[in-house]
């Protein structure tokens, strides 16, 4: 297949490597070194997309990230689909498959094109809002079809086969951009010894040097770039990251870089022969200093039909000619307001193509480049501009006219020049994006006709980003910035490198020109596009100002200017200039625009990195996890812990249901003996002479007299008097305690203790340490527990010797253990703590001996039922941060007469906490025993009351009890303790209403005899 626009020589290509690719189903070839865009241009593909709103044909306009039209859907297979890839930034690889994101069913024949053909007046700004506004309920339907017509790419329907990751980087100086300024900055910092990261979004480092006509040290600029990159690559203290876009600048010099590692090679890493490697990587860089050398984007001029394929930004013409050996047309007209763009005409002519004319808006341009163009015999038309492009599928001519930029009028007769390509340049916009990501507003510079970055601490600017454009000055500016950054990072000796020699050029100043005046008014003239990606025209901006939108931020939102995936890189400044003209204000007076991360779109894969699938969140396992898995446990997430939920039995190919398993496990504990892995409970070792005093201050109850060998249950409140956590604390020695917390509260409680110790009572001599992971905890509970324990321990288990709320030390299954007689089930219970490395042995030994007692493992669901039958709360389930110990009926656990005003005490006498009609913990017994109330269900007293009903409380815990053979619940109810025996109602979402009786919270063994057997 031929490449009609490919030059016979030139470009930084490997012409020995032909690559074949398809675009919209058609097969083409390009060369290694091409971008998808340069390959499409080489193949003479004019139309690459349809426009967003008017569905007009669009061609490639630019050569970098600012490209608004060539937005592609990539991927040969469904799983490899990637939307919204800029063809200008996608390296060509063999087998690449691309489609236009827009244009349904095809870019050549487009369903939506009637909209465009019918002219602009049908779709003013706000068209969608105004037209499809009513009825509101239909918007979702409208939107679906509008989006399908508009086309914004699509995400793959299959799982991504690739992997992605993050790399955390630290450096002294991060240099963003490897053009002339970035290279001298990096070299200056690196030679001083600083750790330097240099990143650049392109395939090859060098930036504008790679397509420059100029010489450095009497050699082509690109040669100097190659040599400099090679020197940097050889330095240990330098990390070079090509193909890496700095996408976000965050607080305290945290910068996110997005590196494409295999997506330039093939659809997937596997297809590239790089199986196991990451497709793209997010570098999370913490830099001491940042040098922003991001350069500038050339602005196109705004003129009529400036979107017809064949209209391009002048600089892009040079890039395609010089870097990729592609001439995107035959006959060129160049429209400019500055000298620099003239190089496109010289490059075009040197490629053997015809330059019809250079049209310059200035009256007397006299710079060196202008002279060179004139000397080469190219016609230069001054005081004029291209007012309108002719053609529909491709430019066929340029309508040129003399203009008065001050008065914004045409002043002469229109001359039509036949051509197929119009290059335009309205000057340069510094790429200030990253400098504004933390909220710093860019500053307008009249002399530069552009915004430069506002001051950002720890960031240095170099080259084009602050309006330094001449090559020699850019190299010098980079050296200065690199040395400054290195010095600021602590490398006091850093100096700018000795600069290579560059020939100075005389440049004549640019004139301000954004929108070219037309012979018709802006509203009547053919469309003059400002934002090509979002189809925002000059007329739309003007209309917005007439409708009262005066700030550019409002104009943007009304017209969608700059809201495309390109963030308006080409159009924003032109839009602001047009708004300013319409409002008769200066550009900075209509407001500046602040960019947000990311600079270019970043794939979700790179953002997520490895934190997906099995590694999405940590899973915490106890020392007994293996046993649980091998014995068929179903698991429940409790925080990050995986806890056995229940152990369904499998008999005859049938698996026991949750309900049946829990009923069986409950009865086993109540009638025989059960065992629970309670290792997840938080455990805090507390040592020090003031440990006891400290406990007295953080718990509501008394600790002064708890003797070694004894255990006590404690409530912990915040200073607002609301319950925060609960648990038992054992006195191990006079100055030594072991506190337990809820599973979820472990970290919070430890931090809470540290908070009070470090900030309020540093004088108390006490230390807290987490021993949660050190101890494995197993609860053996049920009427047969003592018999079982007696077979495996040397501890005296006599009920008089080892009382309820005692703990003892001894051996269990030959392993040193602490055994606690505490109960969360209401049955006789022994809680065994052993060093976690020995847990599995102890657990298995218990089962070896437990068979004759029908020892049954039970999970969290059974534990919940058993404790709820006893009215024992779970902090965080039956409480929610608005419940006091009094609300829970736990007056017995509150020591009002303790000498120190413990945390929460004072608040309990505040009027609101002392109210008698507060929600109080009660039991609920459904009138229908088959009913298990929904947790969270609201309680009302009058089921006939009109909505909104008076809500009196809600259900906090609810289960079916196999012992009671009935559903039962715990709930909080206003004035609940005075409502015992009353009937309350629970209206459900499905219209039914449940009836329940208010009862005591203790459903089983109200006298508490069973735990003392």
């Amino acid at each position, binding site marked *: 297949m031929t490449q009609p626009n490919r030059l016979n020589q030139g470009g930084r290509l490997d012409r020995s490597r032909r690559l074949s690719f398809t675009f919209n189903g058609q097969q083409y070839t390009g060369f290694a070194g091409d971008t998808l865009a340069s390959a499409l241009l080489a193949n003479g593909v004019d139309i690459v997309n349809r426009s967003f709103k008017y569905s007009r044909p669009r061609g490639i306009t630019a050569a970098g990230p600012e490209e608004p039209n060539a937005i592609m859907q990539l991927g040969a297979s469904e799983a490899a689909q990637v939307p919204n890839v800029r063809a200008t930034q996608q390296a060509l690889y063999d087998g690449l498959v691309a489609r236009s994101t827009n244009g349904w069913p095809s870019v050549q024949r487009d369903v939506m094109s009637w909209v465009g053909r019918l002219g602009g007046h049908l779709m003013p700004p706000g068209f969608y809002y105004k037209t499809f506004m009513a009825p509101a309920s239909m918007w979702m339907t409208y939107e679906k079809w509008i989006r399908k017509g508009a086309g914004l790419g699509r995400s793959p329907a299959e799982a991504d086969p690739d992997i992605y*990751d993050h*790399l*955390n*980087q*630290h450096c002294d100086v991060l240099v963003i951009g490897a053009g002339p300024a970035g290279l001298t900055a990096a070299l200056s910092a690196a030679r001083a010894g600083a*750790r330097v990261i240099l990143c650049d979004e392109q395939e090859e480092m060098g930036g504008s040097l790679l397509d420059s006509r100029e010489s450095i040290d009497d050699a082509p600029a690109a040669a100097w770039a190659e040599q400099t990159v090679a020197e940097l690559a050889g330095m240990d203290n330098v990390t070079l990251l090509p193909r890496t876009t700095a996408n976000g600048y965050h607080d305290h010099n945290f910068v996110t870089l997005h590196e494409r590692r295999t997506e330039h090679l093939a659809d997937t890493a596997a297809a590239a022969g790089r199986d*196991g*490697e*990451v497709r793209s990587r997010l570098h*999370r860089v*913490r830099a001491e200093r940042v040098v922003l050398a991001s350069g500038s984007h050339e602005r196109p001029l705004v003129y009529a039909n400036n979107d017809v394929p064949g209209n391009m930004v002048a600089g892009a013409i040079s890039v395609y000619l010089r870097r990729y050996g592609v001439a995107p047309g035959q006959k060129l007209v160049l429209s400019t307001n500055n000298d620099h763009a003239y190089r496109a005409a010289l490059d075009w002519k040197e490629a053997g193509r015809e330059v019809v004319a250079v049209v310059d808006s200035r009256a007397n341009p006299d710079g060196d480049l202008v002279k060179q163009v004139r000397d080469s015999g190219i016609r230069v038309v001054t005081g004029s501009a291209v007012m309108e492009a002719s053609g529909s599928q491709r430019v066929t001519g340029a309508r040129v006219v003399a203009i008065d930029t001050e008065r914004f009028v045409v002043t002469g007769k229109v001359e039509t020049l036949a051509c197929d390509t119009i290059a335009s340049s309205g000057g340069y916009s510094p790429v200030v994006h990253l400098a504004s990501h933390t909220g710093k507003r860019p500053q307008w510079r009249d002399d530069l006709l552009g915004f430069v970055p506002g001051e950002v601490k720890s960031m240095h600017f170099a080259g084009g980003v602050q309006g330094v454009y001449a090559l020699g000055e850019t190299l010098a500016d980079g050296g200065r910035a690199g040395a400054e950054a290195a010095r600021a990072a602590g490398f006091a000796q850093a100096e700018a490198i000795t600069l290579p020699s560059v020939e100075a050029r005389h440049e004549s100043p640019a004139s301000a020109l954004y929108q070219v005046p037309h012979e018709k008014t802006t509203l009547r003239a053919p469309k003059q596009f400002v934002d090509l990606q979002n189809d925002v025209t000059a007329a739309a901006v003007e209309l917005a100002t007439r409708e009262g939108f005066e700030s550019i931020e409002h104009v943007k939102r009304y017209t969608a200017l700059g809201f495309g995936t390109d963030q308006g890189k080409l159009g924003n400044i032109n839009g602001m200039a047009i708004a300013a003209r319409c409002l008769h204000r200066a550009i900075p007076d209509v407001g500046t625009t602040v960019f947000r991360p990311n600079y270019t779109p970043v794939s979700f894969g790179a953002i997520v990195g*490895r*934190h997906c699938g099995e*590694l999405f*969140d*940590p*899973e*915490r*396992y*106890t*020392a007994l*996890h*293996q046993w649980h898995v091998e014995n068929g446990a179903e698991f429940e997430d409790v925080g990050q812990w995986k806890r056995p939920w229940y152990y369904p039995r499998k008999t005859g190919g049938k698996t026991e249901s949750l309900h049946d398993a829990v009923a069986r496990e409950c009865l086993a504990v109540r009638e025989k003996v059960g065992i629970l892995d309670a290792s*997840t409970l938080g455990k805090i*070792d507390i*040592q*020090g*002479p003031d440990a006891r005093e400290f406990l007295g201050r953080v718990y509501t109850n008394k600790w002064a007299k708890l003797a*070694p*060998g004894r255990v006590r249950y404690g409530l912990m409140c915040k200073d607002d008097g609301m319950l925060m956590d609960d648990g038992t604390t054992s006195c*191990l*020695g*006079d*100055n*030594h305690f072991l506190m337990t917390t809820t599973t979820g509260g472990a970290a919070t409680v430890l931090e809470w203790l540290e908070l009070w110790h470090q900030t309020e009572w540093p004088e108390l*001599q006490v*230390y807290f*340490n*987490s*021993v*949660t*992971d*050190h*101890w494995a905890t197993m609860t053996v509970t049920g009427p047969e527990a003592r018999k079982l324990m007696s077979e495996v321990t040397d501890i005296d288990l006599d009920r008089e010797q080892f009382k309820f709320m005692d703990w*003892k*030390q*001894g*051996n269990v*299954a*030959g*392993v*040193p253990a602490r055994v606690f007689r505490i109960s969360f089930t209401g049955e006789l219970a022994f809680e065994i703590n*052993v*060093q*976690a*490395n*020995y*847990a*599995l*042995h102890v657990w298995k030994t218990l089962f070896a001996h437990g068979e004759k007692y029908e020892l049954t493992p039970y999970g969290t669901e059974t534990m919940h039922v058993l404790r709820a039958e006893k009215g024992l709360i779970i902090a965080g389930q039956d409480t929610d941060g608005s419940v006091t110990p009094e609300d829970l009926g736990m007056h017995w656990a509150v020591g009002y007469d303790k000498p120190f005003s413990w945390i929460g005490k004072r608040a309990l006498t505040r009027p609101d906490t002392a109210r008698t009609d507060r929600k109080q913990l009660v039991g609920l017994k459904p009138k229908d025993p088959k009913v298990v109330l929904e947790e969270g269900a609201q309680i009302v007293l009058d089921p006939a009351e009109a909505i909104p009903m008076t809500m009196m409380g809600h259900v906090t815990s609810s289960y079916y009890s196999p012992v009671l053979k009935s559903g039962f619940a715990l709930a909080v109810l206003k004035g609940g303790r005075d409502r015992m025996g009353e009937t309350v109602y629970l209206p459900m979402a499905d219209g039914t209403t449940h009836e329940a009786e208010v009862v005591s919270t203790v459903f089983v063994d109200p006298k508490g005899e069973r735990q003392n057997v």
Partner: protein
Amino acid sequence: MSEAHFEANGGNVAVFDTHPSEVIAAESPLHWSRERGLVDDVAGHDGDVKVVERPFLGHLILRGGAITLDEAVRAELGISLPGKPLGLNVDADGSRSVQWLSPDEWLVIVPGGEEFELENRLREHLGDAHFAIVNVSGGQTLVELSGDKARELLMKSVTYDVHSHGLPVGKAVGTVFAKTSVVLRRPNETGFELVIRRSFADYCVRWLLDAGREYGLRVESPSSR
């Protein structure tokens, strides 16, 4: 039995030898990962990164004033307490170490089985001073990382600067590892150490295997005894 221990320390603190007197099977925190084939039994694999567990070591947390503890630790362990924040002092053969964790907190790691006797000697030496010693040997384990790609593997896993500028030999930090936390140590030139919590150990192993896949990483451990 417990009474005897109370007496050993004036009844103030209960010390506890967690090890059984007879030989009893023990499983390190990496045991479950090994059971599923994620961790290799025996050493011998040579890739760009090598990850090896050193299971069943003695881990003690010391709390107290630096001057008091330094004197006792020197006398009883022969290693001085790191004088500066984030310091890590290792003895000549690398088997015993003392690490700064916070201004009043140090981590001592010794060969398994030594920790109880060391705790008792330290307690005796420290007498009535205000201090705390906590045995955490069952709650954490030590993992060594070495090889050419060890640093890059860590860069994927921790936000801390693992370059020798940020983490020179003799430095140790508590920091974030993936979505959990670890103690990251640089005991010598050849590698790094991670002290990981028991309950997060399997997650850490799976993370390391995933992040190290491109280096052919395997994890090795004799994780049961």
